């Protein structure tokens, strides 16, 4: 154990110290986080601002119906981070060029051109900063109201502002999934499609990445001849286990950091402190803790299964070119479940999906997809985990036997027959 610990320590520390690890683990999610909060941050900056908007009314309806005196408080709309006021005024001049100059010189925040019969056309809004979502949303809802009330007027229906608001509010369709036991559960399939898919994509990337990283590590040790010293200190099994655990922990660290970032976003979403696109917000509200646990379990199973194979392959090769060909079957074992989930995710409980999720090589991705998108019977989940666990133990032992002999081989790559002999010995 002491020996395994030292290999583990080196593999972990050397990899965690690398720049590339810091970039993929911290910088990338930090940037994502930053972009998520950017509207919020911008909103804070523009707090209390008064937006003066000129309206060029070529229709005539707006002049009569827009309450020019009353400015609109932007905070009135829930979830919009920007605070401030919007006040409209009807522009006296009709020249767009002149208004543009006013915008540039910041006399006004922007201007709106309302064409004749605007209710069946588009309205144009000109401004310097087109990223001000709060402002744009507010303006568009105001003019939507105007357009609808004009349409109603043409039908000779007169209604109050209050009634108009009621007419405009839509309803949401909530879908419920009925499980075989008759329980109903709020389905979040549509919104979680992309989330589950990105979870699986990250899983796929990490499995492939760490697999080939560990393989390259072994090849490097062989080609740099440091292997000989290592083998005088470690048994091949200790070496392989140390590597497997050390590199696996790097992957686990990365996943936990990602989850921490997701958690931070989740906290902000639940507190409703920050504006998010409603889709994003819903996704985070629907993620539960169990999904994360399953994710880690399936990551670990997949990692040990695939990476031990990669380590075995690495031990057979003296150079990376050598590895190109023999790693292909293993790479396919990772690609196949990834590609199939893209199709299966639309019908996660189909027979083929169930079968694939129970085949150990495909379990990590396919079963995770099922767990995340539907309600698979628990016995199937458990069975798949047990099956994958048992096969992982076999694969690790099998790879360790190849590794034991492979690490000392140089030059000619052994034939398949020879490899079979090593495993039997």
């Amino acid at each position: 154990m002491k020996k395994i610990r030292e290999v583990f320590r080196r593999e972990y520390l050397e990899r965690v110290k690398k720049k590339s690890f810091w970039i993929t683990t911290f910088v990338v999610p930090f940037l994502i986080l930053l972009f998520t909060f950017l509207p919020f941050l911008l909103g804070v900056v523009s707090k209390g601002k008064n937006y003066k908007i000129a309206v060029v009314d070529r229709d005539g309806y707006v002049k009569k119906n827009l309450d020019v005196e009353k400015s609109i408080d932007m905070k009135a709309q829930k979830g919009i981070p920007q605070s401030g006021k919007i006040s409209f005024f009807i522009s006296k001049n009709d020249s767009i060029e002149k208004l543009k100059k006013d915008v540039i010189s910041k006399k006004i925040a922007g201007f709106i051109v309302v064409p004749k019969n605007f209710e069946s056309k588009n309205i144009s809004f000109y401004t310097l900063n087109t990223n001000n979502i709060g402002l744009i949303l507010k303006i568009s809802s105001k003019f939507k109201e105007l357009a609808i009330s004009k349409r109603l007027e043409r039908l000779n229906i007169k209604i109050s502002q209050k009634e108009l608001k009621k007419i405009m509010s839509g309803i949401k369709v909530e879908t419920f999934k009925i499980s075989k036991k008759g329980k109903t559960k709020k389905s979040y399939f549509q919104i979680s499609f992309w989330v589950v898919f990105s979870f699986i994509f990250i899983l796929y990337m990490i499995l492939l990445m760490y697999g080939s990283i560990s393989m390259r590590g072994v090849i490097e040790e062989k080609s740099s001849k440091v292997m000989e010293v290592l083998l005088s200190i470690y048994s091949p099994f200790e070496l392989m286990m140390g590597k497997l655990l050390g590199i696996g922990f790097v992957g686990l660290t990365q996943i936990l950091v990602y989850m921490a970032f997701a958690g931070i976003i989740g906290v902000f979403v639940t507190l409703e402190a920050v504006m998010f696109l409603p889709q994003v917000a819903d996704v985070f509200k629907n993620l539960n803790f169990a999904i994360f646990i399953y994710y880690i379990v399936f990551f670990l199973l997949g990692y040990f299964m695939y990476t031990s194979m990669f380590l075995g392959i690495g031990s057979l090769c003296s150079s990376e070119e050598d590895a190109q060909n023999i790693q292909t079957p293993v790479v396919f074992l990772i690609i196949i479940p990834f590609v199939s989930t893209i199709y299966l995710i639309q019908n996660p409980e189909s027979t083929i999906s169930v079968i694939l999720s129970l085949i150990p090589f495909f379990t990590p991705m396919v079963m995770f997809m099922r767990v995340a998108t539907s309600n698979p019977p628990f016995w199937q989940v458990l069975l798949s985990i047990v099956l994958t666990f048992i096969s992982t133990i076999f694969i690790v032992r099998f790879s360790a036997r190849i590794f034991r002999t492979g690490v000392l081989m140089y030059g000619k790559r052994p034939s398949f027959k020879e490899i079979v002999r090593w495993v039997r010995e």
Partner: protein
Amino acid sequence: MQGDTLFELRGVKKRFGDIKALDGISFLVERGEIFGLIGPNGAGKTTTIRTILGIILPDSGEILIKGKKFSRDMVDMFGYLPEERGLYRKMKIKDLLIFFGRSKGVYGKDLIDKIYYWLEKMDLLDYKSKKVEELSKGMQQKIQFIITIINDPEIIILDEPFSGLDPINRDLFKDTILELNKEGKTIVYSTHNLEEAEKLSNSICLINKGKVVLKGKLSEIKEKYGKNSIVLECDGEINFLKEYDFFMDIDIYKNYAEFTLKKGINSEEILKILLDRKIKIKKFQVVEPSLRKIFISTVKPGA
């Protein structure tokens, strides 16, 4: 402590496919000696060393260390310098030494002290924060040597320790080896350089084609071969000596010859023949045979 067996190989055999790499190797190494494992390239030196270290398992035969069969927990007793040197190129020197030190069971302050001691001794202290790949080849060799001995091993095994070294490092390694030996470490090293083995070893084991050809204390071997070895320097044709059936082996150059007499043949008889032929003798000396001579005479096919 002389005369105390530290480890022993008994009839060790190892095949690689059709090739008999080791064909019943047996020898014993005593505590505190410098033991030279000698043989031409491909004789099985590296394979022998690898079996001692447990890197490869013999097909048959056994390896006893302090009377016990080799097991994994004995690995920390050894320090091993492989023939093909290799380090983690991207690691910093200090981290590298910490890794190998810890791997071999040295920790904490003790380890740091040892690292500084050896870096200073090898004149590499300024490079401790540099990466391996930034060092010259000679420096990397020194680092590899430090790794070998960082755990203060009882048995130091060096596979061709002097190959590829410049004269300065060669002396540094040699002095360090002698110093370590003085401290009581047992040193086993392999070489095909016989002059070196002759100067350094207490005991030798000569192997060829996986078999032990000659083994024992160097002094005893030399004595055994020494009484009938003759070096001759002269003026004149001496090729005729080959016609006589007096020699175990004979090596004739233009004005120089080395030969070993068969048992029962007296050196005076040779001298008499030479005088009869009126050869001008510059030097006629009974010598201890060089290891080279012994090597050639034992390894040469048909000799």
